C-alpha cells in the first residue's frame, strides 16, 4: 500500500560560501501530509525549491514517482507549488490564473472550463472567475493560488508557508481546510512552516529541520512526546532542558542527579550507566510546584518571573545550579510571588532523555 512518491537522497546545496543543505534524506509516501518545520534560514525553502526544480542541488538525487528528476526542468515535473507570496499572475483573471497550466497542456476548452469550475468550488470561490487578483483579499488570493496548483493534479503539492501572511483566525480556518482538502484529493502535500502549532495540527509526519539537516522525522505524537534532541524538544512545544548525571537505572526508571537534588526520568529503551551525563526534556505544563514547608520534595528553586500570556500563566524558576525552569499553568495567578522559594519536580514519565545540543 505504501508507495514512495518522492525520495530525496543525500541532497546538498551551497550558495556561495554558505552550506544551506548538508545532507537531506527524505522518503515521502503517496497521500502523506508531511511538514518541514524549522526556523528561518534552516534550508526548508531551498529543499522545497529543489523538489520543484527551481533550484539544482550540488549533490544527491531527487526521485519523483520512481523517476530521477534531479536535472529535470521545473515545467517537466509533475509537482506544483503554492508560493508564499501567492505569485498570482496580476494581468489574468482568477479563472485564467487557474486555467494556465491546463492551457499549456493544450487541454480542450470545454474540459478546462469544467476543471476550473470544479476546483474553484473546491476552494469555495465559485463566482469569482472574472475577478482580477488585485480585487481579492489575502485569504481569497491564497485560495486561488491553491486552486491553480491543484488543478493540474500533481503527484506532489508543495506549499511554502502559504498561511504566513494571514491573520491568526483565518490561518486556523485555512489549516483545517487544507487538511480536509488534502484528504479529499488524496494528494501528497509537502508543507513548510516555522509554526510548530501549525505543523502539529496538520501533518501526518513532521521533519524538524536545523542548519540544513533533518534533526528528527516522525509523526506529531513522536516529535512531541519523544523528541530525539534538545533542539527538537525546545523548538516543538518549547520544553525545558535540564542537565543531570545518571545515578541508577531500573528498567525504564531512571534516577538522575539534577542541580543538587534528585529527580526521576523515563528511558524508552536506552541503557545508561551510573555517572553518565544526561540531558532531560521536561514540558512546562508537566513541571510540578510544591510549597517547601508542606511537601519538601524534588528540587529547590526560587521564583524569578511570573507572566500571563496566551491564556497561560508562565512561572520561571531558577534551580540551585542556575538552570532556569519554566512552568505553565491554566488560570491567571498562583500563590507564589517572585522571590519565593519553591520545590519543583516532575513525574518520571514526563522527563525524556534527549541528545544534548553541541
Amino acid at each position: 500500500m505504501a508507495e514512495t512518491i518522492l525520495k530525496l537522497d543525500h541532497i546538498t546545496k551551497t550558495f556561495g560560501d554558505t552550506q544551506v543543505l548538508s545532507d537531506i534524506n527524505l522518503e515521502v509516501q503517496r497521500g502523506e501530509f508531511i511538514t518541514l518545520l524549522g526556523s528561518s534560514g534552516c534550508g526548508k525553502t531551498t529543499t522545497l525549491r529543489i523538489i520543484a526544480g527551481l533550484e539544482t542541488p550540488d549533490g544527491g538525487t531527487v526521485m519523483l514517482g520512481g523517476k530521477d528528476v534531479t536535472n529535470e526542468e521545473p515545467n517537466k515535473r509533475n509537482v506544483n507549488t503554492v508560493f508564499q507570496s501567492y505569485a498570482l499572475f496580476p494581468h489574468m483573471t482568477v479563472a485564467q490564473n487557474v486555467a494556465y497550466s491546463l492551457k499549456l497542456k493544450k487541454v480542450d476548452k470545454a474540459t478546462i472550463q469544467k476543471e476550473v469550475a470544479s476546483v474553484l468550488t473546491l476552494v469555495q470561490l465559485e463566482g469569482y472567475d472574472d475577478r482580477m487578483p488585485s480585487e481579492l483579499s489575502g485569504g481569497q488570493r491564497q485560495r486561488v493560488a491553491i486552486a491553480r496548483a491543484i488543478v493540474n493534479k500533481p503527484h506532489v503539492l508543495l506549499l511554502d508557508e502559504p498561511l504566513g501572511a494571514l491573520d491568526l483566525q483565518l490561518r486556523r480556518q485555512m489549516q483545517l481546510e487544507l487538511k480536509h482538502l488534502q484528504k479529499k484529493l488524496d494528494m501528497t502535500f509537502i508543507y513548510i512552516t516555522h509554526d510548530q502549532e501549525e505543523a502539529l495540527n496538520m501533518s501526518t509526519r513532521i521533519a524538524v529541520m536545523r542548519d540544513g539537516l533533518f534533526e528528527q522525522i516522525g509523526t506529531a505524537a513522536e516529535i512531541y512526546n519523544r523528541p530525539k534532541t534538545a533542539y527538537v524538544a525546545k523548538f516543538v512545544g518549547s520544553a525545558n532542558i535540564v542537565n543531570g548525571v545518571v545515578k541508577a537505572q531500573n528498567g525504564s526508571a531512571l534516577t538522575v542527579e539534577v542541580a543538587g537534588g534528585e529527580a526521576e526520568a523515563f528511558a524508552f529503551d536506552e541503557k545508561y550507566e551510573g555517572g553518565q551525563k544526561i540531558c532531560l526534556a521536561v514540558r512546562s505544563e508537566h513541571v510540578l510546584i510544591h510549597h517547601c514547608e508542606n511537601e519538601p520534595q524534588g528540587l529547590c528553586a526560587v521564583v524569578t518571573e511570573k507572566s500571563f500570556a496566551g491564556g497561560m500563566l508562565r512561572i520561571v524558576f531558577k534551580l540551585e545550579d542556575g538552570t532556569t525552569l519554566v512552568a505553565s499553568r491554566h488560570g491567571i495567578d498562583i500563590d507564589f510571588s517572585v522571590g519565593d522559594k519553591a520545590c519543583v519536580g516532575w513525574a518520571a514519565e514526563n522527563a525524556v532523555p534527549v541528545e544534548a545540543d553541541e
Partner: protein
Amino acid sequence: MILVKNRTKLPNIYIGIVSVIMYLPILLVIIYSFNESKISSVWGGFSLKWYETLFKNRAMFEALLNSVILAVSSGALAAAIGTSAAVGFTRIKPKSKGAIEYLSMLPMMTPEIILGMVFMVFFSLLGLPFGMLTLILAHTAFCIPYIYMLVKARLVDMDKSILEAARDLGANEYHVFFDITLPQLIPAIISGMLLSFAMSFDDVIISLFVTGVNVNTLPIKVYTQMKTGVTPEINALCTLMLCVTVILVLLSSVISKPKRSKVKHREDLEVTK
C-alpha cells in the same frame, strides 16, 4: 501668526514665477499664431491665415510626414531592442551588470553634438547613403536608453516568484516571456515609445548630421526657415505641435498610471467578507 502667513505665501510666489517663465512664452506663441499682421510683434487682429498658409506649404507637410515616419519606426525599433536588452540584463551576473548598465545609458548623457558627429563619421565609414535609413538608425540608437530605463524599472518591480510560478505550472522559457513577462511590460513599453516618439520628433542636432540633402524632418525644416526670418507660420506650426505633445503626454500618463481604485475596492471586500 504673521510669520506663518508669510511662509504659506512663499510657494505661491514661487509657482507664479515658474509659471510666468515657463508658460508665458508658450501662451504668446499660441496667441500670435492667430495674428493677422505679418510682423510678429504687432497685433493686427484675429486670423487663421497662417494656418492656411501652413497647410498649403507642401514642403512643410512632407517634412512632417518624414518626421512621423522617423519617430514611429525608430520608436518601434528602439522598443524591440530596448525591451530585449532590459529582459536580457536581468539574467547577467551582478558583477558585470554595472558596467553594461552605464554603457547602455551613455547615449543619454553624451552631448548630442558629439553623438551627431559620431554617427556621421560612422555611417560614412560604412558607406551608407545618408537619408531616411541613417536617420532611423541614429534615432533608434538614442531612443533605446529611454525604453530600456522604463522597462527595467518595471522588471525590477515585478515579483520574481510569478515567473517561477509559471515555470512550475508547466511553462517553458518562451511561454514565460510571452504569457507572463511581456503582458506586464506593455504599459512600460508604450510609455517608453511615446517618450522616444517625442525625443525623435523634436531632434534637430543629430538629424542635421545624419540626414541627406533631400530628406527634411520637421524640426530641420523649421530651423532652416528661421534663418530666413520668423514668419507667424512658425507660430501656427508650434501651436499644432504643442497640441500633439500635450495629447501624447496625457496618453502616456493615463497608460502608466496604476489602477489605484481597485485597491480601494479590495478593502471593501475584506470588510464585507
